[in-house]
């Protein structure tokens, strides 16, 4: 019983923190209609800054911690004002979500550079001795957390309910256009909402710091928990964030204590999926309904890129020749290995681009499918001596099943919710990879995966593996381009930009989305298997959430909606850190920064920008040829 009470208190404390972060999500969402995943990043920046000020620089906590909160808030507001806010008017909702992934990555990269990868454990505010109430012993920090959350909630309630600023916030959340017509400065309110959210995250950071171990990359855990909490509770109300946070805190703590820590994120995921299916609006729904679709439609930018057929063939041939010749010019073993990894990841990226670039469905959990592919193939080959090819196929089959189950559960979800569901899925896979030690080898990884071999040939060198990956990519690309140039491709592009109009022409929206999701999951799985065979090893962090984020960055930087564009992002982010060893240190930071910059200033990506120039150039130099083509066709 005592143990139960203790766990419940723990749950409430954790839940209170989740609630603070969730509130930030809710405020930003209500004002902008978008979700900022950067929240968790600010939690960790503020917590680490607090540690530096109080422990390293020796400031008293009463000065150092508020300073950390203030500085983080200022930094966050500036970051938001130059990235998130301009993105709102330029990008579609799902791309705004991706830019916040970029911000989260940036914050993690920054924390890594400033604080390194070692863990920090700040001391509690008022000593290690817990307070005993009866026989229940409660750490003093718990009181600090609960009191802080209560004070913040009261302040927020006053701010939103009883001030001019609060009224402006509420006006923007009901109808931004009408608000601007009556004189509310909507852009400023948007920045303010982001500032409020950052401040909430920063406060959560300094009070939660002593109860946990801080590391540069745990920000995303706070993001995910806060996000799950707010979706459970309901995105459009403050009460929802609070209820969702507490509920999630209690549930995960009880699950950790009585079932297993392995399943605490599984429980969170199950609650989330249950709520999404049973009450998609969250447990507590606000009276004001925000129409997502209206905003979304206006900002979907379809960019058009069509090479004249002859140019396309020439480019394809040139690309293939370069790809095949490349290994002969590379002497460094390290560079060759990186190139091989890039080629293997490219297979997953093709699938991701089909899903996101063509069909407009956001997946933040594609590494989950890579993990399934890698572990399944590796496990079967090691333990049952299965032929590697069968192992790969088994992984693809299992991924297909998982994708279908996930898709059926999330079929009604769009945009944000689908992104969240895939993220949660990836997390679940990750915790299984860590937890099922007998199968996956746990945190230290699956060791001794043999090289891929087929028909008596061992693909045991980077070069042979490279050619294998290139071969697979070419086949996959040929198949997909075949599909994309016909009925299937047109249908999915139509779905991306206007689901309703596509339906009115008889396009079965659900079936097409399901097909695309399945194809991309299977490709990710294939890539994951080859990944494991290539490294002869697979560990959870090789295919964790960070890999999912990295895949998205690569795709956007390269150019989405082109199938081949992601190759450039992939090479850039894989090869550069190898060539310039000192850059490896800045890799996370750079990938976040590049993602943001690309979204804001080069939305069509590196390849997209290059191709656009090329198309313009070829169409200018050869108008007669194009005319001839038209007349020729008409004659035929």
């Amino acid at each position: 019983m005592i143990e139960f009470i203790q766990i419940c208190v723990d749950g409430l404390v954790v839940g209170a923190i989740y609630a603070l972060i969730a509130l930030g999500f809710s405020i930003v969402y209500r004002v902008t209609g978008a979700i900022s995943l950067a929240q968790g990043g600010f939690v960790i920046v503020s917590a680490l800054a607090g540690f530096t000020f109080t422990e390293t620089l020796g400031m008293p906590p009463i000065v150092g911690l508020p300073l950390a909160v203030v500085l983080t808030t200022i930094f966050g507001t500036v970051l938001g004002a130059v990235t998130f806010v301009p993105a709102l008017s330029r990008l579609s909702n799902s791309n705004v979500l991706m830019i916040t992934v970029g911000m989260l990555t940036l914050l993690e990269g920054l924390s890594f550079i400033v604080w390194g990868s070692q863990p920090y454990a700040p001391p509690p505010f008022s000593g290690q001795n817990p307070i005993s109430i009866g026989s229940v012993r409660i750490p003093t920090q718990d009181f600090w957390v609960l009191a802080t959350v209560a004070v913040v909630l009261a302040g927020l309630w006053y701010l939103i309910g009883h001030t001019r600023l609060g009224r402006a916030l509420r006006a923007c959340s009901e109808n931004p256009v009408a608000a601007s017509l009556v004189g509310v400065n909507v852009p400023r309110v948007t920045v303010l909402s982001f500032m409020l959210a950052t401040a909430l995250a920063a406060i959560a950071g300094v009070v939660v710091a002593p109860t946990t171990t801080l590391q540069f990359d745990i920000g995303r855990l706070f993001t995910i928990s806060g996000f799950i909490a707010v979706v459970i509770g309901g995105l459009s109300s403050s009460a929802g964030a609070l209820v969702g946070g507490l509920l999630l805190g209690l549930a995960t703590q009880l699950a950790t204590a009585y079932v297993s820590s392995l399943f605490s994120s599984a429980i969170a995921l199950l609650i989330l999926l249950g709520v999404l299916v049973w009450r998609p609006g969250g447990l507590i729904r606000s009276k004001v309904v925000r129409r997502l679709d209206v905003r979304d439609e206006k900002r979907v930018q379809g960019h058009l890129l069509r090479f004249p057929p002859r140019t396309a063939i020439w480019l394809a041939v040139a690309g293939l020749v370069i790809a095949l010749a490349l290994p002969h010019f590379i002497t460094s073993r390290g560079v060759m290995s990186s190139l091989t990894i890039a080629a293997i990841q490219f297979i997953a990226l093709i699938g991701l681009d089909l899903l996101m670039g063509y069909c407009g469905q956001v997946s933040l959990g594609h590494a989950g499918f890579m993990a399934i592919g890698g572990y399944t193939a590796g496990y079967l080959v090691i333990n049952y001596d299965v032929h590697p090819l069968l192992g790969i196929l088994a992984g693809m089959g299992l991924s297909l099943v998982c994708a279908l189950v996930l898709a059926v559960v999330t079929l009604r979800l769009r945009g944000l919710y689908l992104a969240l569901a895939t993220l949660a899925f990836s997390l679940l896979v990750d915790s299984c990879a860590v937890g099922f030690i007998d199968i996956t080898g746990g945190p230290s990884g699956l060791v001794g995966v043999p090289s891929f071999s087929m028909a008596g040939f061992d693909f045991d060198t980077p070069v042979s593996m490279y050619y294998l990956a290139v071969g697979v990519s070419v086949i996959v690309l040929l198949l997909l381009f075949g599909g994309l140039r016909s009925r299937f491709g047109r249908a999915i592009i139509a779905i991306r930009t206007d689901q309703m109009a596509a339906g009115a022409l008889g396009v079965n929206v659900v079936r097409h989305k399901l097909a695309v999701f399945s194809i991309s999951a299977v490709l990710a799985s294939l890539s994951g298997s080859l990944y494991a065979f290539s490294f002869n090893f697979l560990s959870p962090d090789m295919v964790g959430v960070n890999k999912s984020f990295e895949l998205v960055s690569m795709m956007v930087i390269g150019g989405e909606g082109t199938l081949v564009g992601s190759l450039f992002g992939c090479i850039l982010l894989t090869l550069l850190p190898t060539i310039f060893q000192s850059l490896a240190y800045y890799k996370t930071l750079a990938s976040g920064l590049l993602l943001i910059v690309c979204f804001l200033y080069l939305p069509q990506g590196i390849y997209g920008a290059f191709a656009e120039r090329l198309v313009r150039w070829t169409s200018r130099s050869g108008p007669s040829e194009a005319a001839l083509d038209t007349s020729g066709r008409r004659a035929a």
Partner: protein
Amino acid sequence: MSNPVDSVQGPCVLSVRGLSKSFGGVRAASDVTFDAREGEITALIGPNGAGKTTVFNLMTNIFPYEGEVRFDGRDIKGLSPIQVAQAGLIRTYQSARVFPGMTVLENVLMGRHRLLKSAPLSQFFWGRSSRREEADLRRRAEGLLDLVDLLKERDTHAVDLPMGAQKLLEVVRALMSQPRLLCLDEPAAGLNDRETEDLAVLLKAVRASGVPVLLVEHNMGLVMGVADQVVVLDAGAVIGRGTPAEIQHNERVIQAYLGREDHATA
């Protein structure tokens, strides 16, 4: 009130009986009854807010409703909008909804979606049946584009076309699906006079090719010029029906237009 139509009557393609719908307290459609016949252009007119587009949305099952809608002899109540489309009732939207990210030609090709038969595998494997089907499709689409003078724009990004051309493109896209009934929601909105004339020619050509049309329209000049039958809605209810000539002299119709708002001049 209803003027019985005594001229040659083709069989009904669409028959709407007692269609009713309330949104909250607002009665958006009440007991709407009308037919669209083979070989005719039927126009649905009425002042702003009369419920014309609502009738479209109900027919295509975007919202549930009371009443009966029979299409091609089949009860289509309860089918999903997609199934309605697959049955051959193809609609366009008030604001042109061409697909961004596609060329003009591809937009037209998209219209054919429901009729294409090549197997998915054949598409992915560049199979002969799929390639042949695509080539055939292109020829058809280019023919239709030529009809509305858009062939020279076939490789243009569809959203870069001027509004008028986008509306025509949407009509052409709908035509590409060989509809059993073509339902156009204010196709002339946003068109200039010349484009409206082009549209009238196109609509007559569509009728001549055997595709019946149901038209929601504000532009009285267009309606009076092309429609065979006119159904007048006001405040969600049918207040008159007949040939354009009959409607022009119908007291209740004149009252509905002039008595409330006077913007509905030709």
